[in-house]
């Protein structure tokens, strides 16, 4: 079958099962946009290419399928570099198709030319500059294979105009669709290891059964491996408590008795200290990120490490594991369960871990997540807003967040009960992530309620995508926690820069968020008084035919706690002042009777 390159590209995407493309056309990609008219693939026209990238990420997070973004050459392509870097850091499967100037013009500084394969080399898992129309089906198949297998990640495919332009002879090609075997044979350097080494798995099982203070340190890899169920089985089998990192929230239910919640810089006290005191960390799809470890030499000093990851480069990158296992988390956990059960059947018993469990529950009682309620007439506390949003949403509601204080509070205060209900920018920390990511998630899961929790700083970076949402009738809900500041920066300036607030004030009224949201076709509300929180959320939850924005006026002085200051040891975790004092008083009164 004779096709032109543009038709072949769209047909290849159809063959890969793509149901939606997020994109924005331009000169170089024009010929590819023509066959979209005749394709069953839905195209969502964004207002800025960055939006397309984050929507593709949100879609991928929510569905597990690769998100697809398509933009033009030059500025279109450079505008999507941030989402690519974001997807690379958080291992999000994503395909980005960029237009490019014609092959004859490459290298001549042609109009809207940018060396996007060069630019994105270090922020993509792989990228391609396709120079022949005949290569298009193979490259698209390879791109999907690479993006979705091993450690997932973004793959960029750069398509020069002449090979897709039907009026150009270079676009003529004979359609073919490579087989799986051909794809694999064409990638001799790409053979991800998925099955863990049996001897290492035995060693790990023995270590798990011998540990007195074990902790399952679970990262985003569990979600990528679709291993939440296996994880739960393992945790329950050996009754080991679980910490879920920022990228893994939802991988283990927050209401499970073994769940300790989020560790790290703004993790809860128990999750942080459990790792510090642990004698065995079972790291599953986690990467010992600096936000989790704090000062690395002081991190979990007593613990032996079992580290399971599909990316061999993560093993030993930060902390040398005692038992390294390269493999797919789901397969490795299932094997571990088998081996542990076999050992238990042969009579191997675990040490009594009730003392460990009671230490942990003691911490949980003394240092729960807590904040002081607002005094009469004060602005809203962000935490109370989140609690109300959480308690009003169905339990399978998907929550996306931007980056900063509101992100940490959401991760802390939301109760995640299901995998793939939490979408955020963890590794890159991309402000402005939430609105487009929520839109992408809603497109992928139209059956679910999708809330974006955003800050006022973040919202101003990508709000224009609400126009996309309104135009495409994608009914996402946005909560802006408007504290009139770049809140996290303000917190650092307050704590570490002697309250010298440099360039962080944004004003609560400029822009007028309600008018702005309404101008973009959304329903919008402003909440200033605690009594209005619940009724307004109820109103927003009842709207299902267009996007809704609620602006909550929140207290700028509220800081995220607990906190491990940057570069400090996790043992120096700071809890809120009132909690520290209460714990001190309680400890003193316990001593009193003995005097």
């Amino acid at each position: 079958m004779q096709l032109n390159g543009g038709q072949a590209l769209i047909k290849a995407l159809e063959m890969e099962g793509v149901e939606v493309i997020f994109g924005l056309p331009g000169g170089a990609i024009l010929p590819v946009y023509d066959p979209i008219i005749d394709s069953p693939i839905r195209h969502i026209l964004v207002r800025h290419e960055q939006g397309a990238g984050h929507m593709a990420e949100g879609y991928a997070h929510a569905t597990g399928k690769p998100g697809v973004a398509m933009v033009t050459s030059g500025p279109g392509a450079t505008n999507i570099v941030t989402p690519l870097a974001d997807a690379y850091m958080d291992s999000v499967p994503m395909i980005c198709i960029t237009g490019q100037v014609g092959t004859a013009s490459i290298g001549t500084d042609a109009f809207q030319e940018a060396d996007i394969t060069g630019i994105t080399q270090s922020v993509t898992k792989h990228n391609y500059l396709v120079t022949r129309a005949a290569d298009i089906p193979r490259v698209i198949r390879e791109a999907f294979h690479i993006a979705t297998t091993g450690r997932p990640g973004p793959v960029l495919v750069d398509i020069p105009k002449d090979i897709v332009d039907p009026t150009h002879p270079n676009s003529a090609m004979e359609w073919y669709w490579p087989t799986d075997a051909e794809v694999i044979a064409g990638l001799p350097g790409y053979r991800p290891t998925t099955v863990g080494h049996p001897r290492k798995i035995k060693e790990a099982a023995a270590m798990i059964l011998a540990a007195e203070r074990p902790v399952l340190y679970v990262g985003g890899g569990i979600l990528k491996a679709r291993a939440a169920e296996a994880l739960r089985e393992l945790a329950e089998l050996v009754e080991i408590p679980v910490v879920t990192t920022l990228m893994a929230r939802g991988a283990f239910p927050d209401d499970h008795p073994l769940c300790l919640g989020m560790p790290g810089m703004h993790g809860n006290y128990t999750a942080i200290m459990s790792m510090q005191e642990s004698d065995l960390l079972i790291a599953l799809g986690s990467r010992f990120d600096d936000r989790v470890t704090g000062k690395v030499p002081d991190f979990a000093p007593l613990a032996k490490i079992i580290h399971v990851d599909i990316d061999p480069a993560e093993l030993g990158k930060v902390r040398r594991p005692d038992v390294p296992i390269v493999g797919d988390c789901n397969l490795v956990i299932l094997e571990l369960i088998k081996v542990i059960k076999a050992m238990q059947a042969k009579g191997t018993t675990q040490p009594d871990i009730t003392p460990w469990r009671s230490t942990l529950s003691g911490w949980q009682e003394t240092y729960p997540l807590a904040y002081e309620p607002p005094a009469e007439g004060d602005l809203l506390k962000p935490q109370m807003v989140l609690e109300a949003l959480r308690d009003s949403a169905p339990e399978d509601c998907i929550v996306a967040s931007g980056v900063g204080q509101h992100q940490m509070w959401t991760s802390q205060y939301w109760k995640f009960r299901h995998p793939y209900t939490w979408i955020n920018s963890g590794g890159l920390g991309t402000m402005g992530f939430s609105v487009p990511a929520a839109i992408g998630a809603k497109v992928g899961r139209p059956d679910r309620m999708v809330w974006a929790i955003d800050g006022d700083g973040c919202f101003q970076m990508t709000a224009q995508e609400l126009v996309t949402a309104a135009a495409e009738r994608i009914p996402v809900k946005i909560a802006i926690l408007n504290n009139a500041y770049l809140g996290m920066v303000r917190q650092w300036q307050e704590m570490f820069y002697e309250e010298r607030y440099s360039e962080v004030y944004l004003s609560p009224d400029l822009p007028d968020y309600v008018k702005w949201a309404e101008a973009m076709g959304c329903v919008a509300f402003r909440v200033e008084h605690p009594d209005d929180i619940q009724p307004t959320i109820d109103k927003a939850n009842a709207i299902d035919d267009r996007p809704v924005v609620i602006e909550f006026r929140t207290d700028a002085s509220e800081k995220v706690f607990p906190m491990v200051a940057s570069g400090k040891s996790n043992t120096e975790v700071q809890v809120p002042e009132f909690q520290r004092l209460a714990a001190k008083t309680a400890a003193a009164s316990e001593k009193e009777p003995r005097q």
Partner: protein
Amino acid sequence: MNDRQNDLKHHTLSVTVENKAGVLARVVNLFSRRAYNIYSLAVAPTDDERFSRLTVVVDVESVPLEQIVKQLHKLINVVKIVEHDPRHSVERELLIATVKVAVSDRHQVAELTRIFEGRILAVSHDALTVSLEGHPAKIDDFEDLLRPFGIAELQRTGRVALNKLERETPRVHAVSSAKSKVS
């Protein structure tokens, strides 16, 4: 002495890559992005035209080396990586140098080149161009000895390496066991 100490930190990696456009840039970019230092680099197609081989000498302790290798493996176009242990590999480098030398002193440079089993490639009234192929340490020595004559231009290729062929069965061991039987 210094060179020998340096050699302990030098690791020679032989990286087989797909012979495709832009692959060298990917490898070099990775080194720069992860803040690894390349000491020398030589690239050429292998006997199989689908692949090229990069011989990279990196300047690190052993732990980061493991990271370098793992990160290199993550590049889709990297097919195979071998680290050459200097004790079990043959390493070679080529040097070409033009030495400014008066006719009266020319024989000294010619003599030196002969001692090192190098070659004289060109001669003019006041200069000689010589080449030497050999182990990098030998090339270092030759370069040092040439320097006093006045080097006008010098170019080294960076090293290339292959594993040494396996020795035959260890004869010493066989002899000693035979001896023990006799006694």
